[in-house]
């Protein structure tokens, strides 16, 4: 019996102790009519050898294309040490550190994580992770409503330059409450939030403004102006940031005169493999004054009976297991293991290493853009300062080109047509430090070939 250690004699002894004749008797409180008869659609079991062979086969089907897609999930180098540590049983197979004395490893790691995230974002406090970047944005909107006592409107402004999936998640996760989400226009030529359009809302009751930096197109927003404008309206500023970029970009805690109020993002670039979209982790940081409005676990340093320093979950009165229907969120299980990966990644990279990564990504993307825009029919979408992604405009639909690239073992980027039809044929590309000049040349050559064969619009 896979994973069940019982032997026949043991089962008999146990049944005798309980005082029943067979295991089925233990289910006698379940109405007979409800009992499962069989599970036809579950295949027969496999042993580990068989299942590994099956999975290797499935993995082989997917292959290892050269990847130029970013759009919220970025292929970075991950030090081998990171996953060899976090897959240690003591981290991998423990749970939420409810018993602090038996969980100092996890608790101290979370405290260190909180320290690093606050350092990176320039904020005062951070939690121990949210599910992912998108849900962290949604939670930050709900939090903003609680935190912004001056605002009655529950109006949240989100720029159209925020990741479309994130906007969709915010929509889905806040629509049952009284929040009013309002999409803000972007300037067509620049790809950044339209400050003029915003200005027209001046003086109204606004609860929060969500600013993504770099935005979905990889472009840098004028965060100081946006932040100050929002504060002037009495709105809370929610910053959505890429943690890698923070090595080079001004931390949200320093945006404008007062800094952002809530900072969220997806921690994936910090040590989490692409892995089809997860598990990643969302991070969230804020001002000390808002800490009691923050969702998620928080670890504090304290002392034990002997005065020795130690770590424990704190401010649990915000959480569902104490506050139930009045909790800041329903989140319970979070993304602890990935947060650990992020912690070890940040410890190994340090500020300088992260700077190097960020700079390398920018350089590789610049090189990619240069190589691809040399091809006829391809030009750069937006000219502004950017981080490590770029929009390319094409003279024909992008989808068939991507198909041709995929056939050549290249994942060429994200076709923006479904999300931004107003841009016409447009492709979002990304090259991280993992892409070599040879990779870029391979891409350019394959795209050149595709352009030559795939019919122009």
């Amino acid at each position, binding site marked *: 019996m896979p994973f069940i250690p019982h032997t026949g004699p043991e089962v008999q002894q146990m049944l005798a102790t309980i005082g029943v004749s067979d295991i089925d008797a233990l289910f006698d409180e379940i109405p007979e009519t409800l009992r499962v008869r069989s599970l036809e659609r579950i295949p027969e079991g496999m042993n580990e050898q068989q299942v590994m062979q099956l*999975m290797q086969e499935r993995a082989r089907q997917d292959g290892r294309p050269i990847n130029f897609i970013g759009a919220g999930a970025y292929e970075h180098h991950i030090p081998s040490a990171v996953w060899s540590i976090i897959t240690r049983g*003591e981290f991998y197979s423990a749970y939420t550190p*409810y018993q602090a004395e038996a969980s100092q490893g996890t608790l101290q790691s979370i405290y260190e994580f909180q*320290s690093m995230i606050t350092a990176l974002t320039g904020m005062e406090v951070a939690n121990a992770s949210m599910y992912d970047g998108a849900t962290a944005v949604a939670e930050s909107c709900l939090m903003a409503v609680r935190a912004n006592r001056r605002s009655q409107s529950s109006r949240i402004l989100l720029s159209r330059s925020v990741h479309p999936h994130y906007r969709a*998640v915010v929509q889905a996760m806040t629509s049952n409450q009284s929040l009013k989400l309002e999409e803000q226009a972007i300037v067509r030529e620049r790809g950044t939030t339209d400050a003029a359009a915003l200005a027209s809302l001046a003086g109204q009751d606004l609860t929060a403004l969500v600013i993504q930096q770099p935005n979905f197109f990889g472009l840098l927003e004028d965060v100081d102006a946006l932040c100050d404008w929002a504060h002037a309206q009495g709105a809370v500023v929610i910053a959505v940031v890429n943690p890698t970029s923070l090595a080079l970009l001004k931390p949200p805690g320093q945006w404008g005169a007062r800094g952002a109020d809530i900072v969220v993002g997806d921690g994936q670039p910090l040590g989490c493999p692409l892995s089809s979209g997860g598990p990643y982790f969302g991070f969230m940081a804020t001002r000390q004054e808002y800490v009691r409005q923050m969702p998620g676990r928080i670890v504090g340093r304290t002392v034990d009976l002997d005065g020795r320093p130690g770590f424990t979950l704190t401010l649990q009165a915000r959480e569902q297991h104490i506050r139930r229907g009045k909790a800041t969120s329903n989140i*319970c*299980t979070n993304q602890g293991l990935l947060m650990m990966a992020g912690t070890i990644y940040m410890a190994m990279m340090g500020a300088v290493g992260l*700077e190097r990564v960020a700079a390398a990504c920018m350089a590789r993307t610049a090189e990619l853009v240069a190589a691809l825009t040399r091809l006829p029919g391809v030009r750069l979408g937006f000219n502004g300062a950017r981080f490590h992604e770029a929009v390319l405009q094409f003279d024909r639909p992008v989808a068939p080109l991507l198909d041709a690239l995929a056939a050549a073992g290249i994942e060429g980027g994200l076709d923006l047509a479904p999300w931004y039809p107003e841009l016409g044929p447009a492709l979002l590309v990304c090259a991280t430090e993992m892409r070599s000049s040879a990779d870029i040349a391979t891409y350019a050559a394959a795209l050149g070939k595709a352009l030559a064969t795939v019919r122009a619009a």
Partner: protein
Amino acid sequence: MSLDLCEALIYDYGCPGRGAHSQWPAAEAAPPAIPAALKRKQRAALPEVSELDALRHYTRLSQLNFSIDTHFYPLGSCTMKYNPRACNAAAMLPEFLGRHPLASARHSQGFLSCMYELQEMLQEVTGMQGVALTPMAGAHGEFAGVAMIRAYHRARGDLKRNEIIVPAAAHGTNPATATMCGCVAREVAVGADGDVDIQALRAAVGPQTAGIMLTNPSTLGVFERRIEEVAQIVHDAGGLLYYDGANLNAILGKVRPGDMGFDVIHMNLHKTFSTPHGGGGPGAGAVGVGPRLLPLLPQPIVTRTVEEGQPHYRWLDAHDLPLSIGRLAGFMGNAGVLLRAYVYMRMLGRAGMSRVGEFATLNSNYLHKRLQQAGFTAAYPQRRASHEFILTLKPQLQELGVSAMDVAKRLLDFGFHAPTTYFPQLVPECLLIEPTETESKETLDAFVAAMSEVLREAASTPEVLRTAPHRMPVRRLDDVRAARELDLAHRPAVLG
């Protein structure tokens, strides 16, 4: 290891200029083109340590944890069973780790076929008609489920239904979810036998009832015997039934939520399907629905078509699912966790599924009986234990001044993780104990021996319990101080 178990902060190993250099890309020749106003001025106060410093520090920290891989971990409601290493190995095959969530169909068939089959298997094992895999934990699944219930009523123009009924013993996520979904949680009482008070339920339902959230077996560790009646009452009142799948392990392969009358369910794959809990997560909280809610499932969902005789898998998204409650994750959720659950289910197979429920229940009832024989008071002695059961230390608190928390802390000294304490809040001084099916009789017997010893100590040397643990890296921590004098980040970091 040396018994000097405290470990400095990673920052204490740091030193300006130190670093794990071989992890760093080469410096770029040209400085990155960032407008001055948008540039970072001061480096973030991240640690500056060598690779060895970091590796050693986190390896040592890991040793301070209890975990399934090192200790029996009978944390009730959490199903801390063995996480097979094969699941991890398979999910970490390089092709899976390297697959971008937005990769083309061409580079996705292997992964998608696993996800499709996982959806199918989860439907079968729960008796539901459709499954969506996105939710990233139980509570996230609950959100999806209640959001679907709301959307269902709304779609029918039944706009007043904003009450979610929860039994008093419900997990905190249930009422919290109701609130997140813009509903009001309404508690119904539980009878002395642990079942929902049917009279109270009848009184609670009405035109305002959106639905009821139940876990069965309940958090009291007993099977809700009148479940069919409960379903009837709620359905008759126009509400829907939500199944909190946290306790699915107890009945896996024995009875299916769909057959009990539930309309929507989330599964805690990190419990029932044995993916790692990772010191807090990740989890995966796939949702399953009956026919009424099928069109409302969150996106994306994998579908299978046959093209030129070959199966082809693809995502259904917003375009394909116009009535969907929408998107709940940046991509498709915790794919790597889902792969682990898939592998686990394939290893167990059809016969293995029902053995989970059977042996989890056997272990639980055995422990339930033995601990009562050892002098502990069961909260529901007259009932069958499901996969877990509750002891109450109320007698000990009254007679000896020793609390459930004291017993829990002292257990750590014996090398056992404590059971869940003070949940469900309904039962005073409770310990919620869930052994799971992957623990052997010897381990259970050793646990009984430790519990018995603790009980003896409670009578003879209660002070030992009150100041426990004594053999851990730290003694009991000051939670009050932690909340009052908040120290949530290492200082230099705050300056960042």
